[in-house]
């Protein structure tokens, strides 16, 4: 889950500007060549990282794009240019159409679940609850566990012959028993449940931090004006949490667009590709089917989907920082 740190844009970039401006307080004549040497040194220090990321991120993406436009769809490398043929074939492939639909359903349900439950938990914990730290840790610990582990557990919890179904029966709610991921119509929602379990606590933590950042005077003022708790949340607090919702949508959204491990461990492609996602299709067609150009084309589409979400956010937060 990379990206959360973006929530913390440095607030004093103005200070950085003063650092580069040659200040008057440098009387020593010795200091001048040292400063020139240091500016060369500073570039040299970041150079290896810039080159490594340049090659491993941008160079490799470029190469993947090139492979996606080639005819390399067998074990023998064939880099002859075929234009957009791989993309055209993908969009006509029933499996890829299902994948795109699954991605949309998964993303919407996952976001709704995480934001809804996350906000609910945060508001509950914001009511001066006893044992708050314990509750917080319980809601949050799934975030530290790998998708492979949670896929392994949830595969058994949502196995129709055991797990949650047994609990429902014991609670007298036998009618709510479900075939879960064995039913193509609802299989994708089983994966959503596991994903929400894992990341709703994180969403809660973001909202809770936001709530804690709202000045107490604001709440006091609302109470003095006779607002009910509900009115206060609806008209004062929730609107103030909008920036947090945006950050959460970016972070969670880009996770769901590239989801792979959780589905791979829990259900795989599922019955009739009902839990198949582009990440799984890419992995299988490339490394099991040796259809490298097709795999590269899927990867490029995944990248474009993530870029559409992330790049405006990066531009926006860079500008916001520069404006300060």
């Amino acid at each position, binding site marked *: 889950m990379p990206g959360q740190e973006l929530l913390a844009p440095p*607030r004093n970039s103005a200070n950085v500007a003063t*650092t580069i401006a040659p200040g008057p307080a440098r009387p020593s004549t010795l200091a001048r060549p040292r400063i020139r040497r240091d500016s060369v040194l500073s570039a040299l220090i970041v150079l290896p990282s810039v080159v490594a990321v340049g090659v491993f991120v941008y160079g490799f993406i470029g190469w993947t794009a090139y492979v996606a436009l080639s005819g390399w769809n067998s074990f023998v490398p064939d880099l002859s240019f075929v234009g957009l043929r791989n993309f055209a074939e993908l969009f006509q492939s029933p499996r890829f159409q299902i994948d795109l639909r699954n991605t949309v359903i998964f993303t919407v349900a996952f976001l709704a679940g995480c934001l809804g439950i996350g906000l609910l938990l945060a508001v509950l914990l914001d009511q001066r609850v006893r044992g708050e730290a314990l*509750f917080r840790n319980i809601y949050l610990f799934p975030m530290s566990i790998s998708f492979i582990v949670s896929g392994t557990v949830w595969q058994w919890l949502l196995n129709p012959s055991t797990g949650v179904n047994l609990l429902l029966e014991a609670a007298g709610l036998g009618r709510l028993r479900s075939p879960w991921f064995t039913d193509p119509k609802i299989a994708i929602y089983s994966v959503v449940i596991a994903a929400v379990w894992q990341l709703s606590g994180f969403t809660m933590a973001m909202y809770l931090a936001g709530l804690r950042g709202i000045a107490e005077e604001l709440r006091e003022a609302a109470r003095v004006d006779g607002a009910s708790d509900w009115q206060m949340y609806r008209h004062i607090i929730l609107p103030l949490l909008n920036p947090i919702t945006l950050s959460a949508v970016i972070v969670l959204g880009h996770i769901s667009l590239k989801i792979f491990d959780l589905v791979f461990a829990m259900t795989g492609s599922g019955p009739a590709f009902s839990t198949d996602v582009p990440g799984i299709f890419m992995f299988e067609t490339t490394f099991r089917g040796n259809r490298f150009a097709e795999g*590269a084309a899927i990867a490029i589409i995944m990248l474009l989907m993530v870029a559409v979400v992330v790049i405006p956010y990066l531009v926006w937060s860079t500008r916001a920082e520069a404006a300060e």
Partner: protein
Amino acid sequence: MRSGRRAVRVLMYVLLVVLALGYLLPVYVLVNNGLKSFREVSLSRMWEPPARLSPDSFAKAYRRLAPNFRNSLLLVIPATIGAAALGSVNGYVLAKWKFAGADVVFPLLLFGMFIPYQSVLIPLVQFLQWLGRALDVRLYGSIAGLVLVHIVYGIPITTLIFRNYYASVPTEVVEAARIDGAGLAGTYRYVILPLSMPAFVVVVIWQVTQVWNEFLFAVTITGNPARQPVQVALQNLAGSQIVEWNVQMAGALLTALPPLLVYIFLGRFFLRGLLAGALKG
């Protein structure tokens, strides 16, 4: 009125407890069934506690996963040290020594942490294989190769965390060191580094859990089961038809344990760093 408020509070606690139990369900299933003997384990009695505690499943899972645990340790330690060290010096330079072009470099670096790794996977495999063929640097299929991969793809996030942290170090401190005659390296060594502990804690926790939990690079780059990190081994264990499912549960718990312990003991620091900006945001 007062009794109404009381009822609301009681309802609130009921909701909190029920939700907490829900979040803990998977853990209960892991522990409960991991502790059952092979004879006792049964799908239809998943929720019943074991009649007699048996360490068999954990012992068996541990025997299966032990070599892979070792691999994961050999992967996580250097990958964390490498990415944290690079992130720290990069973050320092980007925050306090802005060189020409830093404004362009930084966002380009950041984008690297959002990309779906599928979009670099084919060239990455080709590149590592080529290193072996052409230069006899055998990184493909090895833990060393994975270390390199995790250091490189860890650079964007570690650089970001350190840069944001160093940006909050007052510029006067750096200026003062410079007036005293310290250069770029000296300022880092004597002023910045001693202040860096909180950022290192956040970065180390982040990188350790990320690298320990990572699956896609691990499964593509290490083919030989003896060289695979623990997530891949767990996936093989859980996907196997012949391994009893209580052993799978025990294996999943063992695999989850290291990041869980890190989280339980150090999570406070992690979250504090993670959410520092949201408060101001």
